[in-house]
Each structure stands twice: as structure tokens, then as C-alpha cells.
């Protein structure tokens, strides 16, 4: 079964790279470049996995995660957070907010593929 991934990331080149490697791995990747409207998009798509960057324009990744966890419809969705190295406190906050996995930038493509497979049961 094709895993549907919603990628919320404001860096277009990172989005392209992730979209490429996950698509080659059999995922159906939809991308959003802004935090605004992300929660509505998740509710509409109900993907198998949300990959969420921490630092987003508009609404922060942490706030989006909190909203997803507060909503009974989306609270069980697997969420992988993308964080930059050195953002230890943000990571702790995301952990408390209920993120399922963290990927620190810069990440390797193999790490990304393995994490997505693990979270989507692929």
C-alpha cells in the first residue's frame, strides 16, 4: 500500500529532495510551505504520516503539533518533526507535545527513508 505523507516544510529545496527520495520509496508526498492552514490540510488529507518542520513561517511547527494532538480526529496521526541541531529545548518541547519521531537537519537520506518506513509500517 502506498503511504501518504504530508510534508510541511518552508525550504523548497529540502522539500524537493524529500519528495524525491520518498516518492522513489513508494510514498505519495504532498507538500505545504506554510504553517497557516496546515491543520486543516491534515484533517482534509488524513495522511499516514505528517513530516513537520519546527521553524515555519506563520504558525510554528510546535503549535501545529499541539493543535493536531488536541483534535480527536488527528491526535493519533504519526508526526515526525524536523529540527535543526542545537535546538535541544525545542526538541524537548516537541517531545512533550507528542511528536513520534525527530529528524535533525542535516539528515541523511537513508535515515529519512528508514524513519518513514518505520512510522508508516512500510
Amino acid at each position: 500500500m502506498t503511504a501518504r505523507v504530508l510534508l510541511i516544510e518552508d525550504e523548497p529545496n529540502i522539500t524537493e529532495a524529500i519528495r524525491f527520495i520518498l516518492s522513489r520509496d513508494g510514498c505519495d508526498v504532498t507538500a505545504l510551505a506554510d504553517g497557516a492552514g496546515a491543520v486543516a490540510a491534515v484533517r482534509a488529507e488524513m495522511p499516514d504520516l505528517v513530516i513537520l518542520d519546527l521553524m515555519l513561517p506563520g504558525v510554528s511547527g510546535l503549535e501545529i503539533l499541539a493543535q493536531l494532538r488536541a483534535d480527536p480526529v488527528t491526535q493519533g496521526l504519526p508526526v515526525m518533526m524536523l529540527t535543526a541541531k542545537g535546538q535541544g529545548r525545542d526538541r524537548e518541547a516537541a517531545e512533550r507535545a507528542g511528536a513520534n519521531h525527530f529528524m535533525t537537519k542535516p539528515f541523511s537520506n537513508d535515515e529519512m527513508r528508514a524513519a518513514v518506513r518505520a512510522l508508516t509500517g512500510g
Partner: protein
Amino acid sequence: MPNSQTSSASLTGSLIRERRLALGLRQGDVAQAAGISASYLNLIEHNRRRVGTEVLARLAGVLGTDSAILAEGAGGVLIDDLRAAAATTPGVQPELDRIEDFAGRFPGWAAVLAAQHHRAAQLERAVGALNDRLTHDPHLSASLHEVLSALASVRSTAAILADTDDIDPEWRARFHRNLHQDSERLATGAEALVAYLDGPETAVDAGLAAPQEEVESWLSARGWQLSELARQEGMDLLMAEVGGLASAAARSLGASFLRQAEADFRLLPDAALRHALEAGEDDPCLLAQRHGLPVLAVMRRLALLPGSQAGLVICDASGTLLFRKPVDGFALPRFGAACPLWPLFAALTRPMLPVLALVEPAGRSLRKFRTLSICEARLPQGFAGPVLREAAMLILPEEVYRAADPGHGAVLAIGSSCRICPRARCPARREPSVMAEAAV
């Protein structure tokens, strides 16, 4: 309580010996002139006997010096610094009971040790400041994020190009373009980051004292007076000095301090304050009533009046010391919390009720001080906002301020901070002292 009939300083003996030898006098001659036996003087000089105040006064007379100089010797500051150095060196148990002997016999090495302790504390603060900066500085955080994002894209894209043999030419061209963009972005971001980390702001912020210490150091260097405020352009001159402080935080703190000092000065100029003091009006509460000022403003004016012997500490509701003007014989903690027995903190719990106390700080000087403490509350956001409390404690040598004593002469034994306070049985102790084994 320390025995006021004897000098508690074992260093005194070393100082007597040092003074005698410097004058080229024989032990027997000095002893005879002071009315004691040579063998007793020998014991005193080798710090094996405490010397009574009367004998000390006679010895001081023979040696042509002041007994206070012989009693206080190297000064409490150096001793306190050595204690603090001992407190911050885990795993080592220096001979604390011989600390004064050490300072007396090897004043140069003691000063080196104290200086090293200061330097270590300064570096620890610098590390803390850098760590804090990495965590909280929004500019640095954004710069790092920019670099790491570009790096993430480069790493991922380069791996795609290296690992994917059958990549579509259109995708290949797109990824090449992305790589070029991101490498440019990475270079620019890295240059900006290096420039920022190498900039003067960072250099001074990282290496120097805490901002409050910078401001206090500046005030100390000017003798804790701001007489320029009496001149037309005085505020500009002082602001220019503050503008030369090392860190941005210290400059900001210093500017706030000056604005408040100027406001205080306008309400109660030096001349008016001196006139009142000469007329015997030295009670801050009465001065405040007469001039329509907050009591804390009067206390600040009394402490910053040129030539003032008054020390002053101010704290906020958390007990954090916001301002420290020291006075000889009353050690103020450089780091960490102060002695909880300070009347300042009693005042903090009951706003607008004055607390007058006679205190004796732990240490070698045996001096007593009259402290006048009071807490004022502010409502900067009105009824709907938080109540901000600020307490001040004016510290006056006992001989300077002899107001009516509601405590009936009771002396409150206090310290500087627990870690270096020798009062072993203090009921307010919150942590062991490095001086636990040394008698007061």
C-alpha cells in the same frame, strides 16, 4: 558571638611580627615596652595566642601603628575570596583554619589564588553566557537555522545525485541548480555567522563580568558619586561614560540606573541633602516625608552623595540583589544568594514597615552596622497589573548613625552568604559552609 575582647584574627600575630621586623626592633624590647613577656609576644607573633584588645593597643603604640590595622591585616575581602576559592574547589580540603595565617605569610600567593578564583568565575560566567546566547539569541538561532537548512538541502540533494543512477535528466538539472543555490546560501550564511560570532559585541559579552557587576565596577571607579548631575551637561557626560561599558546589557542597565539617579537628584539635590544632614536630619523616612519623595529614592541619594560612608543593597521580590554598594567590614556576596538574616529580607515581607537593626557581620572586623531597611511596592500597570516590590537596606557604620534603638541594643549576627559564612550554628543556614571547621 565573637569575643570582642580579643582579636579573632590569627593573622594579627604575623602582622605584628612583620611590623616589628620592618622597624628593626628586637622582640624582647617590644615586649618590654608593651608590658608583656618576650615569650608571650613570641607566641602571639607565631599566631599561637590570641591577643587581647588592650595588649594589641599597647603593641600598636610601640610599633607606631593603629591596632585596627594589625587586627584587620590583609582585609576581609582577600580572606573571603580565599574562602570562596576553597568553596568552589570540590575534592580538595584546604586548611581553612589556617587561611589567615596563609594570607599573612604569603600575601602574594594568596592574591594570586584569589585572582585565579576570580578569573575562573569570570570564565564560568562567559561559558554560561555563551550557552545562554546559543539557546536564546534570536539572531544566532536564525543564522544557525539558515546554515543548517542549507546544509540539510545540500547533503540530501548531493546524496540523491550520487546514489541515483537512473535519475531523470530534468530532475538532475533541477538538483544541480538547487545545489548551486544552496551552496551560495551556505557560504553567505556561514560568513554572516562568523562575522557575528567574531564581532565586538560577542567578544565583550563573553569575556567580561555580569552586566550588573560592570555597572557597579564603573560606579566604584568613580567613587560611587555622580556629582556631574549638578551640571547642565552632566547627564550627557555620564551617559557617554556608560556608553563605553563593555557589554550591551551593561550599557542598558547603566543608562536605566542613570535615569533613575538623575530623577532622584532633581528631587533632592546634593546641596539640599547636605543641608538636611548638617541639621541632623538623617532619617530617610523623615527626609522622604519632608521632601515628598519615596523612601527608596532618599536611600539612593544618601548612598550616592559624594563622600557618603553608607552602603546600600536593593533587591526585588525574589530576593535578587539589584544593586550593591559595599561598605568596609560588611561583605556583600558577589555570586549567589545573600544571608537570609539580612534585615533587607525582613523588610521585603512587610512593605512600608521600616526595619531598623544593629547587625554584626561574620568576619574579622568585629564592626557593627546600623541597617535601615524598607520595602516599597509599585503598580506599574495599575490595579490590573502585578505588584512589584523592591526593598532597600542602607548600611551605616554604627558610629555614623546612632538613632534611637528599638531593638534595645540587641545585635543581629549575620553573614555574607552561607557558603563562606563561619557561623556554624546559624539557624538560617541553607548549605554547609567551607568554614564549618573553623571557629568564629
